[in-house]
């Protein structure tokens, strides 16, 4: 369908005109509120309290969300919001990884706030258009598009009946529609979901940026927690922003030279060292596929194992040599010389509604290859790329889908479900075409694929209720926590990483803490107190990226040549100082590395209290499935028998000689579950929380997050804990 026909079918519902405004020291000092139930659009001031306590990015998102919802609000209630915000550093072009948006909503998977960090041009363009955040509330009656013209100062809500829903199609359509020329397309960014997001709780948002060299709208994903499902439930087809005039100083920083200095140093380091370090410029995060396999950390067959003889078929060099276009400036925002947003071009699809089309596929990221591939026993790079493509365009989280698919495959292989239940699909490990068919069904809201889109937690309930499955076994092997599927690392041999997944705010996503090497390999954090310190510092440090509009990857996927000579190489001290300099350079403030952590602590604890306010966020919600801690089945134990027997002897003081595997599994389980409880005690103590996981009033006061409404939530929990 031609663009004119699409545009002519639009019906303007409302228009809002605004003064363009300016960015001062990283802030526009106002946010854009849009209610699509009532077609109300208005400007809201950014208060000093917001800047002091919440900084920006996901801090702003969580604050607005808190004020929008009640403890009774469900994900699909009109009052639930989707909030998109960059942060004070978002939009600079001198330092890699500075174009991120943070998206917050109440998740259909976890029923608590989810936050997701995403690239693409939307976040910077939103700020340059005059807004520190975009807050969307309500539900439209019919499919709508929200359009923001950041040069003319116009926001519209338009009914848009004819545009496609799938991400790669609608992003192209709307980029074409709103750009004045091919050159102008780089000034457009589109947020979309996909057809599966109409049905699947694991829906994502795609944020586009136009790749002038490839002449295609590339897609980056706000992947975790089902934000795309909320987006489509609100009947939003897309949000489009247009801003022409990007340049390096639009944040009007207080001290540009501080920013430039940090950027020049890092660009040189990446130029000199990336080829011998992580090769991010060649293959992005997929550089670790074979490394995870070597260290027995690659999830295989639903996290039963950590390596597989066929991993070489999907190792990073396979993608580099056969699929991923090399030597392209693949940054998802200007100035990112780490360039990890890799893409396979002219890939011909073999299945589904786009069969025969030659497409550009954004990826594979490590998580895609591990989740869609190894975890499902699929070692075919073309299946992985095709599943990657369809996940993106249908609006499906590759991580959740990979983990769910692995779970149902294990259930199928163990006879918990059968062909009758799956609608004829033979869901054995390794059946890539069955995996793709699940995706196609999900996009139509049909068949077993529809059920898969509901997530592991719902599937467990269905398998128990309808097919008589053993709930204890499903709880052991279903890799979800708080309702969110575990991301793609095997944490069995790292207690700290079990905490890195389990003791999180939003659920088991590795963006809070990835401690496996520090713990399991380096043995740098042997005691509970050491682990607790790491599970304090790293989640707080990483939270900071989400307050600023920054990407995590330039922090530690490239390291200075002299990093080995520093006191704390794992923290990359030079880069920590860079971040302090960036913040001070932008805002004119004078924080140090300790205040940086304190800024995060305020928001982190606020999010914990938010979870408690929503009826979760306590110790019982931080429990992990046993598959993440140790061997559930005889096969798992016996596959690493030497390791486990040794641990029983040396750590537990139990002689495995002459014992059955079942007996050994039981003893091992008691030991490991006890370790996790002790770790939980230590981490809560370090974070200033009670044994039930509630932040104490003293701690909230100490960090400056003692807002009355926050205290009001924790008080009854603290009183109850004190008296009982």
């Amino acid at each position, binding site marked *: 369908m031609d663009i004119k026909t699409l545009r002519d079918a639009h019906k303007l519902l409302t228009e809002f005109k605004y003064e363009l405004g300016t960015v001062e020291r990283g802030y526009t000092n106002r946010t854009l509120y849009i209610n699509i139930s009532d077609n109300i659009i208005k400007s809201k001031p950014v208060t000093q309290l917001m800047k002091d306590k919440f900084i920006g990015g996901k801090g702003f998102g969580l604050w607005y969300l808190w004020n929008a919802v009640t403890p009774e609000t469900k994900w699909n209630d009109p009052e639930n919001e989707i909030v998109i915000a960059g942060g004070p550093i978002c939009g600079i072009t001198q330092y890699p990884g500075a174009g991120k948006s943070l998206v917050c909503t109440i998740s259909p998977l976890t029923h608590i706030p989810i936050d997701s960090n995403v690239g693409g041009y939307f976040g910077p363009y939103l700020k340059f258009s005059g807004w520190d955040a975009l807050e969307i509330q309500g539900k439209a009656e019919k499919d709508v598009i929200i359009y923001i013209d950041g040069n003319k100062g116009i926001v519209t809500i338009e009914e848009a009946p004819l545009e496609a829903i799938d991400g790669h199609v609608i992003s192209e359509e709307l980029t074409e529609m709103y750009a004045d020329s091919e050159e102008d397309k780089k000034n457009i960014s589109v947020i979309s979901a996909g057809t599966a997001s109409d049905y699947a709780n694991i829906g994502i948002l795609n944020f586009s940026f136009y790749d002038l060299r490839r002449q295609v709208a590339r897609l980056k994903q706000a992947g975790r927690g089902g934000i795309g499902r909320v987006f489509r439930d609100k009947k939003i087809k897309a949000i489009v922003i247009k801003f022409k005039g990007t340049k390096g100083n639009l944040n009007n920083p207080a001290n540009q030279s501080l920013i430039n200095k940090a950027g020049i140093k890092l660009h040189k380091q990446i130029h000199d060292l990336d080829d*011998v*370090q*992580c090769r991010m410029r060649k293959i992005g*995060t997929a550089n*670790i596929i*074979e*490394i995870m396999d*070597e*260290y027995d950390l690659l999830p295989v067959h639903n996290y039963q194992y950590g390596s597989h003889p066929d991993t070489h078929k999907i190792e990073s060099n396979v993608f580099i040599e056969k699929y991923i276009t090399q030597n392209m400036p693949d940054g998802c925002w200007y100035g990112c010389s780490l360039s990890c947003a890799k893409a396979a071009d002219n890939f011909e699809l073999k299945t589904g509604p786009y069969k025969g089309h030659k497409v550009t596929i954004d990826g594979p*990221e*490590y*998580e895609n290859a591990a989740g869609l591939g190894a975890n499902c026993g699929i070692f075919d790079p073309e299946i992985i790329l095709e599943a990657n493509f369809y996940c993106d365009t249908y609006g499906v989280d590759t991580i959740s889908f990979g983990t769910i698919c692995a779970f149902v495959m294990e259930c199928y292989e163990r006879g918990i479900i059968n062909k009758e239940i799956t609608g004829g699909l033979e869901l054995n490990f390794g059946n890539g075409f069955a995996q793709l068919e699940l995706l196609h069904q999900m996009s139509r809201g049909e068949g077993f694929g529809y059920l898969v889109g509901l997530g592991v937690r719902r599937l467990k309930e269905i398998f128990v209720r309808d097919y008589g499955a053993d709930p204890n076994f499903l709880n052991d092997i279903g890799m979800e926590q708080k309702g969110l599927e575990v*991301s793609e*690392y095997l944490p069995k041999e790292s207690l700290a990483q079990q905490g890195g997944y389990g003791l999180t705010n939003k659920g088991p996503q*590795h*963006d809070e803490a*990835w*401690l*496996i*090497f*520090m713990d399991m*390999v*380096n*043995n*740098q954090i*042997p005691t509970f107190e050491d682990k607790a310190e790491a599970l304090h510092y*790293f989640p707080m440090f990483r939270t900071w990226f989400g307050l600023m509009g920054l990407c995590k990857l330039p*922090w*530690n996927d490239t*390291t200075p040549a002299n*990093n*080995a*000579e520093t006191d704390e*190489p*794992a923290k*990359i001290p030079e880069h920590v100082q860079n971040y302090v300099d960036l913040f001070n350079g932008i805002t004119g403030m004078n924080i140090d590395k300790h205040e940086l952590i304190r800024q995060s602590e305020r928001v982190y604890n606020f999010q914990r209290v938010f979870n408690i306010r929503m009826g979760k966020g306590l110790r019982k919600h931080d429990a992990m499935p046993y598959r993440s801690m140790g061997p559930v089945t005889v096969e798992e134990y016996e596959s690493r028998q030497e390791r486990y027997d040794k641990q029983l002897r040396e750590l537990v003081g139990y002689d495995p000689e002459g014992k059955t595997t079942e007996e050994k599994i039981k003893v091992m389980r008691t030991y490991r579950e006890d370790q996790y409880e002790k770790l939980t005690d230590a981490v809560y103590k370090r974070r200033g929380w009670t044994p039930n996981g509630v932040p104490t009033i003293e701690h909230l006061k100490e960090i400056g997050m003692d807002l009355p409404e926050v205290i009001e939530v924790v008080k009854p929990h603290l009183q109850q804990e004190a008296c009982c």
Partner: protein
Amino acid sequence: MIKVNDRDFEWEEGLTVEKLLEKKRYVFPKIIVKVNGELIKKEDWAKTIINDGDDVKAIHVFGGG
């Protein structure tokens, strides 16, 4: 016997840093190696001999995705 990251590891005659990393299958590209507290640069791994009783640290600088 030597210590590698504070854990016992069998020593053998002629063991170098490079051979040790191979035996441990430590393939990650960003590893900091110290022998008895002394930093060993990557270009010296092949020629640095590890003696019986040495304390080796092979610190992987990797913080995940």
